[in-house]
Structures are given as structure tokens and as C-alpha cells.
């Protein structure tokens, strides 16, 4: 239902008075999430361009929960065209680091550096964390923004006990290797001003263990493994490579700053880690996290609904997720750039839209680029069916899959733009939305 979430939050507010007001919980998708919400929006950019995988959708999920609805989805062309001038913070999630750097190129690197030096906040997770670290490799050397080195780097690769294709990536004459995957426990620096928590857990999917220089501050370190940790090599190697190394780092750059997350703090299943992302944004963008204050009990004025187009979009989305879900049973994976993609990643894109389409439909809001969105939806379904047919015949589908993931990024970004426009539109009509501030106020650690 349209206002189910607001009702859930109201319910929590009524029934959980013992929760610290600053972190009053909110419930989404059936989960009780103490992630906090913002009293007004910083304007957030999310990088969805070349080299990114599906994990930027996790940032979307977390930002939405926190009430950060002023989102824009930026690809490499947008960055080069100066789109960062309109945002307070940019989130760059996982993917292929070389792919990210290659897509952004010199022009993108300059835009990114200018954005941060001008007071912007960069949140880099996994591949997004590797990107601004010190490197001599082309094109990563365009992004030597911070004095942080990779700890999980070796010339002599240890034996991979499992998931060999996820274990390492060539890095010149060395390898970046990933001793573990899945959940890891982080110890939070108690002087970080970020959290009262001592430990949090978050998943690690190839992100770095870091060796920061003096100008950077360690916010969290890899503290321990958990029952859910998957060891890809010998225990001792895992411990030596990760434990006590930096997992979350803050580095100043000009008037802005760069946050590097080794683990995916934005993974939606890790609420305490999500909360930390919110705290970082609160500190760095000068907005205050406080109780949910926006009432969405009244339905926004209805924009005439073109039922057929929104219904068509829903139908196409369903067609696509049916094919994608069926492919999860197939022993297929694709190597795109330096990264291995499984069919499950397709579902992450499609489910991110599917979970939101009912609300978008009920809102009556028709995105401005509905025609383009429908074309992307149809093309996605067609590509998926072609891939399925190729896999069934035992044929090659890497090229089609490469095309599909490009289209999925565009499709999801376009859809989510429309979705957040709808949310903002509803709030504005109720006079509850504070204007977004692009004026950059760096504080906290500054």
C-alpha cells in the first residue's frame, strides 16, 4: 500500500519510545531498521555507469530507507558533463575497478577530483574504494587521490580453496586477492564520532583491506570472522591479510573528503552498517538525522494515470524477472571485463524495480521518459530470452550478457529516477520536503 511504510514508522514511533530518538527505527519490507532518517535531503549522486555492477542498487535501498529521496543516477558522461555540481555526495559501489577507471577516464577523474576538492563527499565501496587509492597502473593512476595502499596484494598467490574465479584479479605483475567472502566483523574506532557501537558486521565481496597513510583516519578495522564468513584460502593467510587492517577509512581532499569502505556497508541486510553510512552522511553534509518527520498520510494529488503504459511496464518487468529467475538454476556465468557475473545479479536489478513498481503505479505519477523506459524494458526482456535460448543450446552468451548488464543499469537508473521523482512529488505537494541543499558544508572531521 502506498503509505504502508509511513504507517509502519508511525506505529514504531508509538510503540518504541525506549529507542533513542536520534535513531528511532523505521520499518521497510517487513524489517525493523534502526537506520535513522534525515530531516532534509542532501542531494545524492549514485554512479551507475561503466564498470559498475549491481551493488549501487544497495545504496539506493539504504538511502530510500533513510528518507534520502533526492537521488540522481549518474554515468560517466554525466560526470564529465559536470553533473557533480548538483550533488552533495557521490556513492560509487562495486564492480570492476579497471572498468570504472576506464569509463571515467582522465576527464572523469578530473571532474571527480574537482567535486571532492570543492567540498563534495565521495563514498566508495568495494571497487569504488579501490578506485581513488594509490596505484601506478593505467588507468587507475589517474585517480591517485588518497594515500591508501592495498593490503590484499601479492606476487605469490596463495592456493584458492574455493570460488577460484572470485579469488583474485591480476594487477600488473601482482594479484589483488580476496581471502574471504561474505560476513566479517568490524571493530569501530571509538574516537570516530560515528557510532556508539563497538562492532558491526558487513559483507565483503572483494573489497580491499587497506593500509592508510598518515593523512587518513581509520574509522573501522577488520576485527574478526563470523560463522557466515566463507574462507577462500588458508585460515592463517586470511587472518594475516585482513585482521587489524583498515576496513573503513576517511581521507580529506581539499574541502571535501573520501570515504573508502572495504566491505559493503550499504548492503541492505546489514542494518547497523547502513546506519553507519547514514551517520557519515549526516556528519559530512551538515544535515541532521532525526525522527521521521514527513507525513505521507495524505495521498498526493493524482496525475492522470496512463494505465496502459504503466501496466505495460509492469508486464515487461514481470516477463523479465520470470526469465531471470529461471536462469538462476542454470550453471552459467559470464566474464564481463575483469568481473564474473552470475544470473542472480540480473535479479537484483529487476527486483529493485519490482519492489517499487506498485507504489509507483499507485502514485499515479508517470515518469517523463516513460516511452524510453518501456523500450528499455522490452529490450531487456528480449535480451534475456535470447540469452536463455543461447544457454539452452550450449552457445556463447557473454556478448549478450555484457549488453544486458549495460541495459539493466540504464533501465534501473531510469526507473528509479522516475520513482524518486514520484516520492518527492508527493512530499512537495504536502509541503513536507525541505529543499535540498547543494551548499557543501564539510564538518565532523574537517
Amino acid at each position, binding site marked *: 500500500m502506498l503509505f504502508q511504510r509511513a504507517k509502519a514508522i508511525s506505529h514504531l514511533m508509538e510503540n518504541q519510545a525506549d529507542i533513542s530518538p536520534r535513531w528511532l527505527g523505521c520499518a521497510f519490507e517487513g524489517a525493523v531498521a534502526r537506520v535513522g532518517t534525515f530531516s532534509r535531503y542532501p542531494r545524492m549522486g549514485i554512479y551507475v555507469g561503466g564498470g559498475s555492477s549491481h551493488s549501487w542498487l544497495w545504496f539506493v535501498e539504504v538511502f530510500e530507507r533513510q528518507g534520502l529521496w533526492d537521488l540522481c543516477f549518474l554515468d560517466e558522461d554525466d560526470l564529465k558533463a559536470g553533473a557533480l555540481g548538483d550533488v552533495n555526495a557521490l556513492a560509487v559501489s562495486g564492480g570492476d575497478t579497471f572498468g570504472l577507471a576506464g569509463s571515467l577516464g582522465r576527464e572523469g577523474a578530473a571532474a571527480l577530483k574537482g567535486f571532492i576538492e570543492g567540498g563534495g563527499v565521495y563514498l566508495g565501496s568495494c571497487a569504488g574504494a579501490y578506485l581513488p587509492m594509490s596505484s601506478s597502473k593505467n588507468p587507475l593512476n589517474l585517480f591517485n587521490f588518497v594515500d591508501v595502499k592495498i593490503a590484499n596484494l601479492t606476487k605469490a598467490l596463495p592456493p584458492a580453496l574455493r570460488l577460484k574465479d572470485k579469488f583474485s584479479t591480476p594487477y600488473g605483475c601482482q594479484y589483488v586477492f580476496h581471502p574471504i567472502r561474505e560476513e566479517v566483523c568490524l571493530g569501530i574506532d571509538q574516537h570516530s564520532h560515528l557510532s556508539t557501537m563497538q562492532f558491526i558486521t558487513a559483507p565483503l565481496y572483494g573489497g580491499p583491506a587497506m593500509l592508510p597513510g598518515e593523512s587518513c583516519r581509520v574509522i573501522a578495522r577488520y576485527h574478526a570472522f563470523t560463522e557466515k564468513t566463507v574462507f577462500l584460502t588458508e585460515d592463517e593467510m586470511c587472518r594475516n591479510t585482513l585482521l587489524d587492517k583498515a576496513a573503513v577509512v576517511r581521507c580529506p581532499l581539499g574541502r571535501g573528503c573520501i570515504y573508502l569502505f572495504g566491505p559493503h556497508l550499504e548492503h541492505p541486510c546489514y542494518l547497523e552498517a547502513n546506519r553507519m553510512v547514514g551517520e557519515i552522511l549526516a556528519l559530512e553534509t551538515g544535515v541532521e538525522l532525526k525522527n521521521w518527520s514527513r507525513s505521507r498520510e495524505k495521498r498526493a494529488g493524482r496525475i492522470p494515470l496512463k494505465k496502459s503504459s504503466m*501496466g505495460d511496464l*509492469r*508486464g515487461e518487468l*514481470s*516477463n523479465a*524477472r*520470470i*526469465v531471470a*529467475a*529461471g536462469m538462476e538454476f542454470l550453471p552459467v556465468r559470464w566474464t564481463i571485463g575483469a568481473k564474473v557475473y552470475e544470473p542472480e545479479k540480473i535479479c537484483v536489478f529487476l527486483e529493485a524495480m*519490482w519492489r517499487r513498481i506498485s507504489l509507483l503505479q499507485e502514485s499515479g505519477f508517470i515518469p517523463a521518459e516513460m516511452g524510453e523506459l518501456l523500450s528499455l524494458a522490452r529490450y531487456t526482456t528480449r535480451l*534475456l*530470452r535470447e540469452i*536463455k*535460448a543461447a544457454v*539452452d543450446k550450449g552457445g556463447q552468451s557473454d556478448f549478450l550478457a555484457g549488453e544486458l548488464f549495460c541495459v539493466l543499469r540504464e533501465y534501473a537508473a531510469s526507473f528509479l529516477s522516475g520513482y524518486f521523482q514520484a516520492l518527492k512529488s508527493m512530499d512537495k505537494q504536502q509541503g513536507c520536503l525541505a529543499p535540498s541543499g547543494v551548499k557543501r558544508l564539510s564538518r565532523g572531521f574537517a
Partner: protein
Amino acid sequence: MEYLSSGKILIVDLASSETREEELEEELISRKIGGAGVTTHLYNLYKSHDPIVVGSGLLTGTLFPASDLSILTAKSPVTGTLCHCPVTLKAGIEFKYCGFDYLVVLGTSAKPVFLWIHDGVADISSAEEAWGKDVWQTTDLWRKDMGDDLIQTLVIGKAGEMRSDLAQVSVNYWGSGDVWGFGRLFGERRLKGIAMRGMGLLEIANPEGFVESSKKLLSAVKTGAWKGKAGLVDILSSIGEKDEADWIAPLVHRNSSSYNVPYAGNTFLYLDEDPSLLKEPQGAEPGLLLTSPYGLLAAKALGLSASDSLRLMRSCCRYGVDPEMVALAAFRDGKKTREEIEGSFGLLERKGDIPWKQPFSPMCPQKPMFADFSVGGDPKQIEKWWLRRQALAYVFGVDPLFAGMSPELTAESMIEAVRIGSGIDISEDALDGLIGELCG
């Protein structure tokens, strides 16, 4: 309806190519409960259009034991009465999860079409390419076109397209409990079939309680007299058809269950390859799946060998005809060999043979299997018992075959499951009244 339900009824008008949704009101559920109770109500509501209605029970697709059933309800073009065909295997639950609790099909399409129902979306799509194809080819075509091997189909073959009295609506590739010529109804409406796929979720009012009570009931059910038995061979033995059981036993490759049914009641037989083979067969389709013993018994009565009987049944599956009725018509027409019968599929007629008058499908044996239901030996009492067991299954969405072998699945257990799962209290009197209506 908030729980155990998607809360929606889909109305499809084939004549205008339009679809619309209606809300499933809790008030209707409190009166007609679900399954055949509601499909009958919807049939009567749209009676002037002679609709085809598909529906699920409140327990369909849940953890309640044997909750695999959806129902196809329509007026039989053969008997002229309202009848209910069970939809089992995985198709029954697929319907439940594709976003609608009930589907009402009205009118006749100008061109061949099929319904593609998925995630609460209903498309009326062209079936021009499938028209003329047999049941297997059609299911394969739709699965390939839509890119998912898990799509479930209710589909007709050439028999339905030719409007044969013997035509049945098949489930995926296999025969169904349709002995009433519903396949002809589909053909008359130029409805080649219904393809279904849904990834929806069911809300449960008290999920922990529902899981706990279902587990408890399953534990009790598993101690039943059928324990250690499997497939049609053991069913045949239990109903006194030991010779027939021995006749097919050498061809059995494996037994499998419909969704969540504790008894593996479907039997796959190998014809073209060694039944003892435990690896992937060489051929694409080495045999056939039987969900009911009666077609086989009728074929045996013709004097065919086990192998020829099963080959004939496989041809029936592809052509989309009821094998039991085919055997009866062939016997009457003096056709004795498999080749003769297969060659006359398009010509066989019922000629007034309507051996079944009940509203529920005779695919399930009309006597208790394995268990003692304390029915006694009086045929009238046995018939009364059978009708009530079938009605219960068809109302709540429970496998009708398993209902005939598991006395632990009582009306009380179903009422209790609905209460826990949906919060709706159904009185035994209301249920008895509904069963009385359905059984005529």
C-alpha cells in the same frame, strides 16, 4: 482478502480482448470458502456467458499437507452439467502464485489466443503459431518463447482445436482429470491454453502458528497406512487391481509427487529406454507420466500389451484426448490395435457414452486407498464418503487423490488451518451446507 489469497479475481473477455480485475471480498469467502465453492459461485454469476472458471483453494500452495490443487470449473459440453476438473502437479500452485485467486473466461475469441498470466499481469496473446501443434509442442513453444522452463500450462491439443467430445485440457504435457470435454470448450472459444508463472508471496495471518500446525499435521499424516507405498502400482494394488499393477510394474522408472503431497502418486514409465536407467536418458522423452490409473485400465481391457497401452496413452497425451474415453470409443468401433486407434483419433466420438455423473473427476479411485476410513462396505455409503472427501479437497485446495488415502486430513484440520492462516472462522455447518450444494 488479505491472507492466504492475492485478493483478486481476473475477468477475461476473449471476444473484446479485455481484462479486468475484481476484488475478492472476504464476505464471499465466508460464505463459499474457496476453491470449487467460489468457482461455482462465479460460474453462476456469469452463467449467461457460459464461463470457464479457474480457481484455487485457501490452502493451495501453503504448507498444509497435500495443498497442490486448483480447479477448472465449467459446464461440460458432454454432460451439460457443472463439473470440476482438478489441476495438480505444479500447475495448481502456479495458478495461485501468479497473482489471481480466480479467473473467469468469457466469450469467444476471433482468432486463436492463449492467456499468459504472470505476477498479477494478464496478457491475451496470439496463439496462431501454436494452433495446430500438439500438447507437447505447444508447452515447449511457450516455455521457449517466454524463456522459462518452469511455466505451467493448461493446454489443448489438436483434439480440442477440432472440438472433439473426447478432448481434454492437459496439464503441461500430461493427461488430467478432465473427462468432460473441457478441451472442446477451450477449442470452441479458440483458447489454446493458459500459461502461468508467478513469483508472488502469500501473506499468512499467523505465520508461526500456521507452520507449527502444518508440521504437526504432517507428522500425523506421515504415519498413515500408505507409508512405504508409492506410485500408481501400489494404488492399483490397494484398490484390488493387482494384475494391472504387476502388468505395468516392469516399466516403472520413478514415482513423483505433486506439490507438497506426501504420497508420490504420479508414476513415470519408460517405453523407449531401460526403466532401470539412473542417468539422463538418450531420447528427449522416453516415456510418459501417469497421474491416474483409469486410462491404463481401459487400454488393458482392449487387449493391448502394456507397452502398446502406454504408447497409446502417450499419443493421447500429445493429441489432447482422454485415454479412457478413447478406449471406450475404440472398443465400440471395433478398433483393436494401437495403430488403428491412433489413426482414428480425429474420428472417435462419444456417441452418448457418459459413464460418469458426478461433479468431481473420477481420476481418483472411488474407494478408500490403503487406509480404513470406517466407511463399511455399502456402495452407497462409499459413494457418499467419496463425494464428501472430494468436495473437501476441491473446496480447500487439497490433492483429491491424497484425500482418499489420508483420514488424518479432516474437515476440522482444514477449517483450523484456514482460521490460523487467514483469521476467518468457518463453521462446520457452513462447510456441510456448501458440500451439500456442490455434491448436488
